[in-house]
Structure formats: C-alpha cells, structure tokens
C-alpha cells in the first residue's frame, strides 16, 4: 500500500451535497455511511453526517468540468476521484463522482448486468479521502481499476487493513481517542505474527505499550508496537511524523507473517501535495476559475459556513424553515460569485406524494430560462432540462423543489425565470421574486417586484429575458414590456412599450428565452417565435415548440 497524509483527528464529519436522481439521497447517504464505517472500524475513526457543507469530507456528483482541473469524461473510463487529507486545503477529503455514470446499488447476491456499483467505488474513493493511495494488490479495495461486482460483498483487503493500521493506529493522533489506550505490561506471549521492534532506549517520557487486536475475516493479527507519546524521535525504523503528522520519509519495513507469504513493504510517503494542488484553497480556485469561465463551471460545494458572498448572513438558517439569513441587500458586483452548491441536481422526491406531472407536450410553458448555459423549462411544479433545442437531459423532469431547495411548499408555479448578470438565478412568482445563489435564497428573498420598477398589482409578469446585445433585461406582461437596467436598477425611460414593437410577437406570452445561439425565443401555448438578436427581426411564422424543443 502507499500512504499519503492522514487526518489529525479521529472524529470526522461528512456532507452529501447532491445525488443522482436514479440512486436517490437515501441510498447515497446510506452507502457512504456504510463505507465510512467499514474504514472507521479499522482506524478507530468515527464519522458524523452534516446537513451543511462545512464538513471534513464533501461527497458530490458532477459532470465534465467541475472546477477542480480534472474534468470528468462522460460515461465510462474515469468514474470518480477524491482528494487526500491535507491540513492546508479545504478541498481535502472531498470526493467527486462522475454524474454521467449509471450509478446503481448492486444487490449482494445479484450479478450486476449493467451500471456501476456505487458502493464499491465509494469505498475506494473514501480510502483516498482517508489518506490511502492506489495499491497494486488486486484484492485491495485501493486497486485502481473498477472490477464490477460479482454479487459477493465488497470488502477491504488485507493491504487496506495494514494501511489503516499504519496510518491511524501506529501513529499517535493528538485528539483524545474515544477508547482509552490500555497501559499494559507487554504480553510475554508473542503471537507468530507479532513483530518485535527493536526496543528504543527509554526516553524521557514513559513509553506507552499499545497492543491492538485486528480481526479480519476471522483471522486475527496482533502487533505489539511501541508508540512514542510525545517524543518527537521515532524508533529508527518508523516514519518520523512531524507535528503536522505528515509522513516525511520513507522506511523499509519488513513484515513477516506466519501465514502464506512474506512481503517487504516500503512505505513510500509521498510529499503532502498530491497531484491535486493542495495549497490553493477552493475559494481561490473558484475566483480564478469562475471568473475565467464563470458561466460553464461546476464548483464543488463550498465548505463555506453559509455566509453568503453577498454579505454576511447573520443567521445560518436556510430560508423558509426557520426564518431567513438576513444578508446585506446590496451585493457588490465584484464579489466573487458564490461557489455553486450542486443542490440543483435532481434529488429524490421530498414529499411523499409528488404532484402529478403535467403533459409538457401540450405546451403552455410557465417559464423558460437559460441558466448556467443550459435551458430549463418550468411547468407547474416540474422542470425539464435541455442542453440545446431538442437535446433533453436524461433523468428529467424533476420537481422544481429538488433544484431550488427551500422554495416554500405553497409555490405551485414559476411565472418567469432568468439568470442575473451576477450569476444568481431569479425566480418570479406573482408580485414577488426570489434570488437563488445555487445554495440558498439570498437578499432577503422573496422581494417585491417593485425592485424592478414594475407597478404593484399587475399580478406578476409573463416572461423575462436578458438581451446579450445590450445587457438589458426585458420584462413582459400582457401587451406591454419594460426594459430594466441591471446596473442602475431602474426601468429605462419611455417604458412600458407595446409588445407589437417586437414585430409579430403575440400578447400574453408564456415565456421568453435569450439563447447562446444569438436568438431570442418567445413561447405561447405550443408555439414559439424567433427573434434574431442582431437585427431584431422575428421569424415570419411561429413553429411548434413542443416538437422542436422537446421532441414531442
């Protein structure tokens, strides 16, 4: 086995940030918990799940570029990756699974015909999160290649147990462990597998004898080790741990076993910075990466403590359930966009009986929005997701509450939606609008439509879109539309104007969308019109939106 860094504590927290719709939150959380317990049993580690991303290990699913410089590659090949523990980096321990894989839960006695077994990959990746690198031992869970499951239960190999022993039992960890280490006279019986290390001359501090019993598959191994308590000098044949507990040198250690084989294991203790840059923190990456490719990155969930990047929330509560974080309303445009928390991904249904799914092929979309480079169609309480016209993303529709968590239950439809220039998503419901930063509703959401200069009492807007040619935001209602200046936060003079101005666009539209193909689309019933952003001319006749966009 090969070791990277280990954690300096025995009680670790973890957060499951999102999950594939097909596997669902319950299965992901249960399997992650099971894998952590499996490792924890062999390292005297405990794990507690946290509902917020300020945890030691964050588990998330993402596809393609997700802002850690190691983009995923679509279905197959690379399935996941994880970050080794490292005190200096706040991404340490995190695990990213490729969302494009067909993640399934393999049943113990069932041969997996198709799909990728989530548990065996999770057990492997959590090995990295705890400080183990890849092993050449084919029976080790840290073997680099996915072997599928033949229905037998996936478990740790002997190599893995020895690695955990080395990393978390032999090494004295400052944090008081839950078990008191027994001070025992060294047993005079030496089990065949006990290796007696050359006793170190008594140091100033009393040496503690620690005897650990390991049971693995009913075979028991017992090693007797001398564990220096505070001495900074370790016996010659053991890694010297600096106070940051980072193994800093390599040691030849020979373990002989009375069992089948003898192997010489050299602990190659890699430099702490693994191939993942561990010095820069996630926030630096987000700033750097996000500013560079701000519209097309996935940012692994931030271990932020819920302070909104638009000011400091005085309470860490999420909106809706227990009041709302009061953030300073004025957001400075230069503030780095808050890292994305992937709570957008479809997650298992939260309410026991989800509302009936509408027939999208009847058209009459409630809202259509370009959010982070993809198209989202809202209808009733559901959302459809498209990569482009007629390129639906599988696994949709999902309940909108699974993407916009904490949207109160009484919201049954979205009138309009768009992505504001600062990257936040704005949802309009009646005379109110909600600012969503990918994790929380912020800026004291919901807020009054009057912030957009729209008179009270018009009963909400029909549609909204931003015209990339002038950066202005257009709000539509009935036979009129307003033009809003996002910088000055005011309606331009001379508005509202009649919707006929757009030439051929009907009144009372359902939705509007400015897409990256340089066109603006207006939707009504099951038809759509095209406005060419360059010359502002609409297409002559409407076309079928349900067929051409959704393949109905």
């Amino acid at each position: 086995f090969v070791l990277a860094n280990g954690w300096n504590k025995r009680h670790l927290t973890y957060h499951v940030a999102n999950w594939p719709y097909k596997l669902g939150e319950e299965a992901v959380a249960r399997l992650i918990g099971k894998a952590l317990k499996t490792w924890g049993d062999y390292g005297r580690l405990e794990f507690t799940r946290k509902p917020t991303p300020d945890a030691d290990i964050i588990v998330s699913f993402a596809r393609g570029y997700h802002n850690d410089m190691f983009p995923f590659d679509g279905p197959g090949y690379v399935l996941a990756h994880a970050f080794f523990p490292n005190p200096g980096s706040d991404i340490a321990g995190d695990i990213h699974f490729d969302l494009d894989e067909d993640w399934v839960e393999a049943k113990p006695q069932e041969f997996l015909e198709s799909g990728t077994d989530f548990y065996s990959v999770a057990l492997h990746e959590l090995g990295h999160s705890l400080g183990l690198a890849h092993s050449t031992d084919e029976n080790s869970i840290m073997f680099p290649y996915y072997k599928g499951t033949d229905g037998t239960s996936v478990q740790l190999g002997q190599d893995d147990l020895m690695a955990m022993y080395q990393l978390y039992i032999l090494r004295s960890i400052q944090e008081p462990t839950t078990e008191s280490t027994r001070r025992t006279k060294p047993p005079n019986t030496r089990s065949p597998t006990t290796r007696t290390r050359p006793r170190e001359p008594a140091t100033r501090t009393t040496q503690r004898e620690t005897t650990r019993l390991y049971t693995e598959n009913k075979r028991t191994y017992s090693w007797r080790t001398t564990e220096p308590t505070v001495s900074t000098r370790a016996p010659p044949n053991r890694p010297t741990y600096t106070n940051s507990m980072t193994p800093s040198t390599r040691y030849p250690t020979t373990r002989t076993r009375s069992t089948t084989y003898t192997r010489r294991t050299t602990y190659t203790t890699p430099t702490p910075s693994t191939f993942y840059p561990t010095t820069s923190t996630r926030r630096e990456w987000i700033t750097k990466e996000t500013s560079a490719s701000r519209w097309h990155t996935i940012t692994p969930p931030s271990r932020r403590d819920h302070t909104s990047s638009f000011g400091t929330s005085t309470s860490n509560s999420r909106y809706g359930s227990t009041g709302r974080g009061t953030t300073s309303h004025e957001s400075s445009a230069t503030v780095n966009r808050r890292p994305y928390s992937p709570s957008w991904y479809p997650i298992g249904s939260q309410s026991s009986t989800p509302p009936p799914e509408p027939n999208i092929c009847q058209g009459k979309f409630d809202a259509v929005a370009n959010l982070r480079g993809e198209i989202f169609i809202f209808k009733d309480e559901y959302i459809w997701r498209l990569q482009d016209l007629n390129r639906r993303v599988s696994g949709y529709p999902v309940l909108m509450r699974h993407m916009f968590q904490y949207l109160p239950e009484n919201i049954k439809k979205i009138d309009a939606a768009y992505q504001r220039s600062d990257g936040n998503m704005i949802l309009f419901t009646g005379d109110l609008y909600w600012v969503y930063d990918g994790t929380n509703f912020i800026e004291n959401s919901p807020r009054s439509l009057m912030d957009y200069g729209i008179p009270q009492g018009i009963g909400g807007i029909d549609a909204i879109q931003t015209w990339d040619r002038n950066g202005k935001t257009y709000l539509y209602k009935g036979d009129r539309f307003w033009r809003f200046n996002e910088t000055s936060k005011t309606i331009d003079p001379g508005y509202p104007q009649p919707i006929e101005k757009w030439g051929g666009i009907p009144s009372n539209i359902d939705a509007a969308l400015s897409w990256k193909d340089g066109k603006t689309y207006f939707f009504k019933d099951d038809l759509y019109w095209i406005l060419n952003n360059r010359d502002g001319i609409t297409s002559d006749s409407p076309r079928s939106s349900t067929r051409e966009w959704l393949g109905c």
Partner: protein
Amino acid sequence: LPVERTVGPPPKSALDFMKQYGYLKADKENSAALYTEDGLSEAIKTVQRFGALKETGRLDNATLKLMSSPRCGNPDVLHGKRSKR
C-alpha cells in the same frame, strides 16, 4: 452546476495515460523524445503491476485494454514517487 457538456475522452495515447496517472513525468513540452526505451519499459511494467498484469514491459493488448478500463481518476504513482514493492 449545469455545464456545457465537455466530455474529455480517455487519454489519446499510452503516453498520455502514463503521464496522467503519474508513471511518467508530465513535463510541459512534448517530452516523448526524452524517454529512453528502458525508462518507458519500466513505466509500462509499473502500469502492468498496478493492473495485476504480467509485467512484460511491452504495450501488449492486455495493457492497452487496461488503459481504457473504468477506473479511479486519482494517480497510481504519486507525484513521481515510485512505490517500490
């Protein structure tokens, strides 16, 4: 976040694979010419060892197949440190 689908295909070549997973130093310039035959052969043997294959030191079919098998994205050899067994 939803992103434009940019699917990175598996490494285009065995050389890319060995750089990506730490078997060869991934220097910036195209260092293909810098590797000696012995060096490459040793690197291939390490690839085969991490794949529980016969260590022939040659890019045989089993090794090429291994290089496109589903796997973990972490490197096999950390930062150029060879894990001697």
